[in-house]
């Protein structure tokens, strides 16, 4: 049962891959290694919601192969699930750079969640404590440890 899906697009000399789902033992990432093209590979990880322990190993193997290859790669729009692994697993990003992350917000009034992108390549890496809740009109608060979202920038 493959729990992972991806969509490939070529733009601006890059190959952009939008990855969605759960990275588990069933995730076959070898297909991504076989993608044609020689430009930078941008892995959009905003849709990755879960990674289990075997999935971490699959991912480590994947980025190790990418790092050993000639093609550069970067991690963009890293979901909170990915950020968590970046902070706890050695070599989770391999030789790739982390370009942007998705900041999680939570509304305690209606218990909804939202994510807002943060560009880590710019001069400002400020994380807003609060944003308006689009669902109930209340206030959403940043829902994680702020330092864990900017500590691996660069």
């Amino acid at each position, binding site marked *: 049962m493959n729990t992972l899906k991806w969509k490939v697009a070529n733009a601006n000399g890059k190959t952009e891959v939008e990855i969605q789902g759960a990275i588990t033992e*069933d995730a076959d990432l070898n297909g991504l290694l076989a993608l044609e093209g020689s430009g930078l590979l941008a892995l959009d990880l905003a849709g990755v919601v879960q990674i289990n*322990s075997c999935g*971490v190993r699959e991912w480590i193997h994947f980025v190790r192969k990418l790092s050993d290859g000639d093609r550069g790669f970067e991690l963009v729009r890293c979901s*909170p699930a990915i950020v968590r692994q970046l902070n706890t*697993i050695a070599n989770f990003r391999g030789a790739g750079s982390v370009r942007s992350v998705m900041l999680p917000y939570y509304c305690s009034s209606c218990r909804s969640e939202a994510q807002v992108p943060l560009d880590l390549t710019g001069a400002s890496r400020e994380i807003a404590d609060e944003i308006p809740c689009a669902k109930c009109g209340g206030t959403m*608060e940043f*829902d994680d440890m702020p330092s864990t979202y900017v500590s691996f920038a660069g």
Partner: protein
Amino acid sequence: MDPKSPRLSILPVSSSGKSIAFLGADADEFAELVRGLRKAVGEVKVIESLAEVSKLPSSSLVAVYYDARIEADRNRLISDFGGGAGGPTLLLLSEKRARHNFAQLFGSHVLTNMIVIDSNSVNDRDLLVTVKKLRYGDIFGMEKYFAPDAKAHTLRVTTTAEKNWALNTISEYAGVLGIPPRLRALIRNVSDEYLTNALYNAPVAEDGSRKYASRPRTQPVALDPGQEIEFQFCYDGARFGIAAKDPFGSLEPVQVQDYLAKGFRGGEDQVSEGTGGAGLGFFQILDSLSHLVINLEPGKRTEMIGLLDVRGGYRNFTEAGKSFNIFVRQGSP
């Protein structure tokens, strides 16, 4: 907490000859906690120094408020309680400080029991359950951590296909309860690791070898007839509980401690190569829970219990400390 005035409270239990020692920063600050313990297990006697721990009988339980200890005392705990063989049982009480030393505490095999004590309040239930389990040996059952009216749901799992069904069932249940998606993902992740461990790592053959441990997790397995994993989940409005009980009892505490130490060290050996598990399961489990409890009856059964505080969002969960217990029931009929 002021670490300058360490005091040690001893709670002897005359009926069993066991005693419970409480080492805090100031006994007055823990008056409520001590009252609760006294109610549960017996009298309280205060002594003044860490050195007196060595005079306690080996059957004692020594509860130490870790955050108030100075570095020398923390190192002494490692040397006095490390190795795991003999001597009193150590129960660490900590708000967050111990979390920063998990690699050392697990790696030295000192840490088998730790309960979070919040700066504002003590989770009486978890502390009292822990103390009673250590004293009386009645260790199995997730219901001990919940009020009597919190109903547990039970599924029976014997194959990889049933594991996936169980994961979908618990995810759907957590969704119906309105638990936010990120916390739901943690619940699913813990359930996944529990069931994978019970299906692949726990089963042993008659010669004691592990039947499926080195099998790729992409290859399905089925337990033998008569064997099953009891998978439970429970919610009381504040915490979500997950439990998986296997009929093998093949897990060893030192294995758990070593895997956790490796995970928290974050070194080059953090992820295991090879065809079986990635060696990260326990690390991922503890990282995803407020409280991990492992109950072992060697050769008979292993129960993994996970408790997750779902009262607020993810930040509320991740900023809090983590409780951890390994209980071993020995010599049962």
